[in-house]
């Protein structure tokens, strides 16, 4: 496994609307929350820590917690978070966070949006495996918990 295969996720999508429209959908907290699935408490600004409540049915108790890095209008929007912060009572603040970077590019037909999430290798393999076995029921059960969480957090 090369570093790039395990350390990052990259996805792209063509959106048939102008770049300014996409930027608004990403950085207006109300608009963002509607498609992402979170009720955001606050506004997005570089350096800001923003929290919210997941709105997906059945998971309204899950808190969403990000620290914004860059906001370059209509070009780049990025934040850090813990996508694996699923266990109650565990303090994840000392753990390495992953970085999410949205990039917008004007192309024929609309806007090309790229999202890259990276830093997974810094989340130690041991920490992940430990988290997955916390219930004592093994990987399968914990994968289910993480599955439910990421299904709502994304």
């Amino acid at each position, binding site marked *: *496994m090369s570093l790039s295969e*395990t350390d990052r*996720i990259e*996805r792209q*999508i063509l*959106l*048939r*609307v102008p770049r300014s*429209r*996409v930027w608004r*959908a990403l950085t207006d907290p109300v608009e963002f929350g*509607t*498609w*992402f*699935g979170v009720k955001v408490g606050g506004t997005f600004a570089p350096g800001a820590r923003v929290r919210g409540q997941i709105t997906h049915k059945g998971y309204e108790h899950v808190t969403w917690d990000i620290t914004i890095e860059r906001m370059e209008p209509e070009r780049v929007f990025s934040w850090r978070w813990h*996508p*694996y912060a699923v266990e109650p009572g565990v303090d994840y603040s000392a753990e390495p966070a992953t970085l999410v970077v949205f990039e917008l590019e004007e192309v024929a037909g609309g806007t090309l*949006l790229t*999202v890259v*999430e990276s830093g*997974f290798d810094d989340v*130690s*393999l*041991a920490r*992940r*495996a*430990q988290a*997955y*076995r916390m219930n004592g029921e093994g*990987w399968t059960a914990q*994968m289910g918990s*993480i*599955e439910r969480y*990421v*299904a709502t*957090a*994304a």
Partner: protein
Amino acid sequence: MSIVRLTEGARVTRQSVTKHLHVLAGAGLVRSTRVGRDHIWEIEPRRLGEAQRWLDHIAGQWDEALGRLKKSLED
């Protein structure tokens, strides 16, 4: 492979490699077998496969979120 091989060319001490290997062993990600005086360490491929599946799962969640974004903008 042995600790000696693992640390060859790397800027880490044998102690730190050993320490990390024991943590990984505790998590079931590597195992060791005694061969004479040495411990030979091997990756547990099934566990690493599970870690990769987790990554694939998060990627799938991004696909769904981007799908919702596209639908909200284009419909």
